[in-house]
């Protein structure tokens, strides 16, 4: 097992380099002057700014040297200055990261929790109405454009029925809790402010559900398939023959095995969630990396766009690594494979 993890870790730097190189190539594919990707239209008229940028990014030097400068800047955490906010992109992202993480983690919990439950029950009640219903539910979840379902559900539950509060992470009149993690839910609990905790949770509910619905679908299908596979195995029959009751057979024996292949799906659904976050944060006025990315795209704020892309790629790599490690830990047979 250790060898497996080591192999994966060793491959990481190369993939990171690949991401950085790809970002470099993309930003140099920009129409016209490569400076646009760093400065934007208006600042191009200012010769001082242009000269400073040229020096910083080495743009008057040959391409390979530019590449090295680019990599060096990246390694020191310099992602350029956002055209829109005039702040370093890195700083913008760090400020907004906790909001997105809170949303994505909440969606992951909701999505996997309900997804696994649905999958287990669908396998248990195979071919019965519940199974068909959960299949339909899953398919709809994978077919919905999240930016639209978010919109419609927000309209219904916030305007028509008033179950859900308005946009944002907290009520407009409330101040955020003192910063510890940046997660309003966790931070308000740490500050023992239960009113604020409930408010934050209330605001988190719908976005997390909307995002979670998409991954609920693929997870429940995977769990169902795995469970059906596992339930037909001899060791399930043997467990029953020992006297294990249905619930124990389902959860202690079957689910533990069925979850192993499901782990890769859970890791993979992280990509869905990143995509979802990018598309839904604007709908919910959620001040995270996603809405930052959308604003950057709408304004053609190249440094910000590239910054978000690089960070997204890295996040992706890290989650894939974590998934692989979790898989290795869960399956005692891994070194045999």
């Amino acid at each position, binding site marked *: 097992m250790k060898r497996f993890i080591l192999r994966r870790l060793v491959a990481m730097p190369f993939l990171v380099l690949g991401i950085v190189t*790809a970002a470099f190539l993309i930003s140099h594919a920009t129409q016209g002057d490569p400076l646009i990707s760093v400065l934007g239209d208006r600042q191009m008229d200012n010769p001082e700014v242009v000269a400073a940028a040229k020096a910083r990014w080495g743009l008057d030097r040959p391409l390979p040297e530019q590449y090295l400068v680019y990599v060096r800047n990246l390694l020191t955490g310099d992602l350029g200055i956002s055209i829109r906010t005039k702040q370093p992109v890195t700083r913008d992202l760090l400020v907004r990261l906790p909001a997105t993480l809170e949303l994505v983690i909440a969606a992951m919990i909701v999505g996997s929790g309900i997804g696994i439950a649905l999958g287990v029950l669908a396998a248990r009640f195979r071919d019965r109405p519940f199974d068909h219903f959960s299949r339909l539910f899953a398919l709809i979840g994978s077919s919905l454009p999240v930016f639209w379902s978010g919109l419609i559900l927000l309209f219904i539950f916030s305007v028509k029925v008033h179950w859900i509060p308005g946009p944002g992470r907290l009520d407009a009149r409330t101040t955020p809790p003192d910063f510890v993690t940046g997660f309003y839910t966790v931070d308000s609990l740490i500050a023992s402010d239960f009113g604020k905790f409930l408010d934050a949770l209330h605001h988190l509910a719908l976005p997390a559900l909307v995002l979670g619905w998409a991954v609920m679908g693929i997870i429940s299908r995977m769990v169902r398939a795995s469970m059906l596979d596992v339930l037909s195995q001899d060791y399930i029959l043997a467990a029953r023959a020992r006297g294990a009751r249905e619930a124990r057979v389902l959860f202690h024996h079957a689910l533990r095995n069925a979850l192993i292949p499901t782990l890769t799906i859970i890791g993979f659904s992280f990509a869905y969630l990143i995509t979802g976050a990018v598309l839904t944060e604007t709908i919910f006025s959620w001040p995270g990396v996603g809405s930052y990315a959308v604003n950057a*795209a709408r304004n053609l704020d190249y440094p910000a766009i590239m910054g978000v892309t690089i960070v997204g790629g890295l996040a992706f790599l890290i989650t894939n690594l974590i998934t692989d490690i979790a898989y290795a830990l869960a399956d005692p047979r891994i070194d045999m494979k």
Partner: protein
Amino acid sequence: MAMASTNAPAWRRPSWLTLPVAAGGLIILAWIIVALTVPLWTPYDPVMMAGRRLMPPSAAHWLGTDALGRDVLARTLWGARFSLTIAAAVISAAVVIGALLGALAGFLGGIVDGAIMRFADVTLSFPPILLAMAVTASLGPGMQNAAVAMIIVWWPVYARLMRAQVLTIKQREHVEAAVACGAPPARVLSKHVLPLCWSPILVNATMDFGQVVLLAASLSFIGLGASPPTPEWGQMISEGANRFYQWWIAFGPGMAILSIVLGFNFLGDGVRDLMDPRTQ
């Protein structure tokens, strides 16, 4: 004189026509017909003002009108033309490029394989939407550039599939026989290996259609794809988001996307069930 009774044989449902396959197929077929024929029968032009602005659904305008007074239903139906065309173009190009590169990688092995697969791996390291965003922004917003970006995002999927297929087929005996007979590599590849590799690629390509429609709409939603006044679904939802209380503006295109992608997902799910040896 006896009358010969000729009963027409009762129609027996073919075994592959399961409920998901039928439902999915019908939905897709319906949309294809709409996309092809809508110019012939809509009463309203999708880009011209047709009534008062921001009117809720009524008898005259079944899905109401938008901020410029255009009929939402007509725009929704017209949108199919753009979405289906773009998806078809992107998938075809991604399949051709991906399959070609994947076949070369699998067949030639060595450095070629390594290089192509590294490219593919790096491309797949990015969340698709972000990569598509970055590339489109670099090239400049617009439907064509968005299509190019999507092709760049999607080709590795088919490259990997094709490579895996080629690697399996390559080891089969009839290929070894062909090589032993002295057939040149290009011929072995085209005549003996490739014909057996296509089917999983084609099946996956059909099932990916829905995902490409979603991605295209997403890019338009954030302003990098189609621009007004094009009646593209993502674009329309973006307009609808600005008019939150006029829910019908986003409702039409959203339902359209949902139904088309659902159709493809039904079809894909049904096809996957048919091919799964366990359910046979």
